[in-house]
């Protein structure tokens, strides 16, 4: 039976103004006492539908204005603050130029209304397999910088997701920013989303590819898949097959077939069956690599 809740459960609201204050609250450790949010576009809906345990208090992070930034430097790379909205990432000329797949992924996240509120960090913390920002971040080699009251750690994005809706984040831990390595010579990236109803639809398959090409060879390739397994994933076999390989249709097709084999979609789900998703991974990886090979 589908229960269609529209009403908010009861909770208290806090909006701390300092990062340390949030960490101090989270250090409390009592289950379901606190839940942090930035844009709230996922959390408010989950609360209405009782999809998650209702916390005693929701913590609005928007008081921490210092976490709303995009900082790009050619030698050190890109940093995106935990409060930076999807709209700001989609509209950033620097991200569009140097991290194309991420700008393209951001533009595919739901409506303008949602993009104006939602954050890229929230998109990955919510950890849905079809999250449009996840394959680009995997392909671009992102790291997630997290903090607790005791210190900071940096987590590779491929180690961040642990299951549907689950991440390695501890209850007392808060994401500060997402870091991406500086662009390298001859590299480019692309994100392709298969979704019959476009950006309002969840990805049936999302594929991001980052490739560095020099003298007719792939020197380095990273591939990120969305909605192809319980979490967003990399495809190490396909990437290894391309490393050092000549840029040719044959090599691209072989890698696409490998990537398809690395996908682990559900046998049946209401958007698309497993077999179809395997096939579409192959099609989209081939298409993305062909596009980057130019």
């Amino acid at each position, binding site marked *: 039976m589908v229960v269609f809740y529209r009403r908010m459960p009861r909770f208290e*609201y806090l909006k701390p103004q300092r990062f340390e204050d949030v960490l101090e609250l989270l250090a409390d450790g009592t289950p379901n006492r606190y839940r942090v949010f930035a844009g709230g576009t996922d959390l408010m809906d989950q609360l209405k539908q009782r999809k998650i345990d209702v916390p005693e208090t929701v913590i609005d992070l928007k008081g921490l204005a210092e976490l709303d930034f995009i900082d790009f430097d050619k030698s050190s790379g890109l940093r995106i603050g935990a409060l930076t909205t999807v709209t700001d990432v989609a509209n950033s000329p620097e991200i569009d130029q140097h991290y194309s797949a991420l700008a393209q992924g951001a533009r595919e996240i739901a409506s303008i209304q949602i993009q104006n509120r939602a954050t890229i960090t929230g998109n990955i913390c919510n950890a849905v397999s079809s999250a449009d920002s996840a394959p680009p971040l995997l392909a671009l080699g992102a790291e997630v910088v997290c903090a607790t009251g005791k210190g900071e750690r940096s987590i590779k994005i491929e180690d961040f997701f642990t299951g549907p809706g689950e991440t390695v984040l501890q209850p007392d831990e808060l994401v500060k920013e997402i870091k991406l390595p500086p662009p390298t010579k001859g590299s480019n990236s692309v994100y392709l989303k298969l979704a019959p109803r476009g950006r309002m639809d969840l990805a049936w398959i999302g594929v991001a590819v980052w490739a560095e090409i020099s003298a007719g060879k792939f020197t380095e390739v990273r591939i990120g898949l969305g909605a192809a397994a319980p979490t967003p994933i990399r495809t190490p076999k396909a990437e290894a097959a391309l490393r050092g390989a000549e840029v040719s249709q044959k090599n691209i097709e072989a890698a696409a077939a490998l990537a398809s084999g690395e996908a682990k979609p559900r046998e049946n789900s209401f958007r698309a069956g497993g077999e179809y998703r395997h096939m579409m991974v192959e099609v989209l990886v081939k298409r993305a690599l062909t596009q980057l090979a130019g």
Partner: protein
Amino acid sequence: MDKITCNFVVNGSAEEVSFPPNRTLLHMLREDLLFHGVREGCSHGECGSCNVILDGKLVNACLILAAEADGLEILTVEGMADGEDLHPIQQAFVDESGMQCGACTTGMILSTKNLLDANPDPSREEIKDALAGNFCRCTGYAKIFESVEAAAETMKGGQQ
């Protein structure tokens, strides 16, 4: 759940409102301030019926807590007209029959304003993209797109 008190500027007027912390912006606007042009459709951020412009940005009021909007400016469809004179976008929806049941219309008008403020001369594809977050349950999209085009035409002519 003790009530919290916040201040807003809604359609140009300062408002002080007290509400429980789980109050959404949608319900604060509809039930506390009686702006019934802000509609509850799907209540999940899919349909755009609850659109408002918050601090200059188009948002779904159903997914925002009223407390999050403390201190900010809010524009609802009620703030579009100048007294008895409809805004050119509203007039275009009337003239071109850009509505059937009317449930989605207020949201459509705010999405159109958001589009035309940034892009005064949009193509049909750009209009469709800008209205992707607004559902018309009557499926009367053709007339809605024509209304947006008519509004763009009037506004380019300098009539505000």
